[in-house]
């Protein structure tokens, strides 16, 4: 029987080209199933008790949730080719959620941002003046798209910049009282301006759809969204706002009931090769953490990157804090009120 590895990953993260290359390189048959959101991944794993897949691809700030529910197993550090990973990503991920109770549960594989996508004709933006607040300007009524819960964070950063938050945004992730205090203000603002939203998105596909068929001119989306639209020739740009782009790191984890653990490590190590990293980045416009991948990037990907983060944009990245279970539950309640209002 041929060895197999079942990969449960973000839609669009593993292309057919990558699957073929992986199989050719390792002799292992990869089976790829896509998902659209972190929560979908988490709850799907809860529903199946952590069984069914060998590799999953959670965002680092959510890894503690998986650990709580016993859905992932500690990484056997000896089986990972650590020298293939950018060192700062490995060390940085430690405090972002990859390490829980002294055990590492995730190998970093990429990082990216959520910032402003805009229609160059209808809503042109410039670095420096562009702000999360642009989404909520009166002119953008009926033309904006955001993801429910991260849209609230964007508003928070905008209000924080204008000094209208009772506490710094980051404290909202630390305790329930702080969160309530901050989010009540954010939600009120969000509901008051909800008329700007033409469509909410929750996954890549919906985000692209907002621009492609639903008439959105501005939005808070992932980098991959704008890149995907631009690649098809749509006049969509992507730019970090002056408050700082929301940055996240992701990596590969192994579910607690994985059936093909060795193959899982083989896949993780393969993803960290420069070739695989570059293939990944070229397809998604998300940055690989594989050493040497940047050298192999396509010109297109390089250009997108340069345009997105001019000047000091990279220094001002706003990294997602860890989102504990209580936070996720509560954030969902706020999101729900926002969506339903």
């Amino acid at each position, binding site marked *: 029987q041929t060895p197999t590895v*079942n990969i*449960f990953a973000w*839609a*669009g993260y593993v292309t057919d080209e990558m699957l073929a290359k992986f199989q050719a390189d390792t002799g292992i048959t990869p*089976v*790829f*199933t*896509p*998902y*659209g959101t972190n929560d979908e991944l988490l709850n*799907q794993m809860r*529903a*199946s*008790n952590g*069984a*069914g*897949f060998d590799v999953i691809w959670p965002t680092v700030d959510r890894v503690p949730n998986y650990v709580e529910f016993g859905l992932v197993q500690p990484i056997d550090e000896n089986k990972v080719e650590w020298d293939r990973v950018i060192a700062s990503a490995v060390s940085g991920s430690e405090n972002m959620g990859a390490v829980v109770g002294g055990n590492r549960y995730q190998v970093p594989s990429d990082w990216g941002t959520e910032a402003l996508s805009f229609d160059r004709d209808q809503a042109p933006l410039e670095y420096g003046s562009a702000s999360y607040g642009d989404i909520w300007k009166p002119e953008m009524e009926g033309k904006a798209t955001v993801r429910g819960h991260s849209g609230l964070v964007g508003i928070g950063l905008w209000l924080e910049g204008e000094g209208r938050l009772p506490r710094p945004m980051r404290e909202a992730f630390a305790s329930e009282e702080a969160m309530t205090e901050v989010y009540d203000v954010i939600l009120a603002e969000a509901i008051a301006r909800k008329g700007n939203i033409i469509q909410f998105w*929750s*996954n*890549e*596909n*919906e985000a*692209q*759809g907002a621009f*492609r*068929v639903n008439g959105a001119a501005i939005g808070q989306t992932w980098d991959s969204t704008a890149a995907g639209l631009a690649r*098809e020739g749509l006049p969509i740009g992507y730019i970090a706002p002056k408050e700082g782009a929301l940055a996240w790191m992701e990596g590969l984890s192994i579910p607690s009931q994985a059936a093909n653990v060795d193959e899982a490590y083989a896949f993780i190590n393969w993803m960290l090769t420069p070739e695989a990293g570059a293939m990944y980045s070229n397809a998604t416009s998300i940055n690989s953490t594989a050493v040497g991948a940047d050298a192999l990037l396509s010109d297109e990907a390089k250009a997108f990157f340069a345009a997105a983060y001019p000047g000091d944009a990279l220094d001002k990245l706003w990294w997602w804090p860890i989102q504990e279970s209580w936070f996720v539950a509560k954030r969902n309640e706020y999101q729900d009120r926002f969506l339903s209002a």
Partner: protein
Amino acid sequence: MTSAVALPPSPAMPARTPLASRAAAAIPKILFWIYVLAFFVYLFAPLVVMSAAAFNTSRFPTVTPWLGTTTDWFAQMVDDAAMWRALWTSAIVALGVVAIAVPVGTAAALVLTSLHARAKSVLYALMVSPLLTPGVVIGIATLVLWRQIGVGGGLLLIVLAQASFISAYVMLMVAARLQRFDRTLEEAALGLGASKLMVFRRVLLPFLKPALLAAALLATLQSIENYNTTLFVRGFETPLTVYIATKVRTGLTPAVNALALVMIAITIAGALAWEIARRLEARRSAASSS
């Protein structure tokens, strides 16, 4: 006969010419055909648009703007190994559902017919309750129960959750046919010396056969089509509806439309074949009985 009531003339008892009243009589007919036309436009417009989009080069499935005609999406659909896996999964699930729901629904219909009115209506209410339960609730309830005893979502739970309400459909179909069953046939068979088992096998079962086949078909369709319930109990399994829904959420391409078009084509072909067979059969039996 003398009448106490002076009758007003019947609504349209006019001195209209026959021609004029014929024209007036035609108006409701015209309105009705306009309605029929609208109905079928409503029924088919979405399907036509969806099918057409399978030939548009646009990566997002639409017909406006028309970026060029292509059959690439069909090729992509054929190459989509995950889709074929999903189809296979759906087939296995459907098989399991039929294997449970048909015997269970049949037994339920038979038990119902042998009960007295009061017990019957209580049991009947219980049996149709899964049909009055939202699909998501069935999925959730099943998942919650089985996780409690350590069974996670997967093929088994999909089959059980679907069978819980599809059995009710089977029960209804079998019960409907059973209502037309003439119990004296059973007595006749008994009177001729047959055992109860033989009566069941030779008289009742053959009578139920068409309903059982139809129920199996319906069960298959319901199973393949189900999304709301399956979504919660699928665990890491991906039947076709879930696959399609995932595509819709994670990267819709006209390959899905190509798939839909193929399914529509198969449906039409199947339906036509069925209709032709039915008419041939009707003609045959008409010929043989005259």
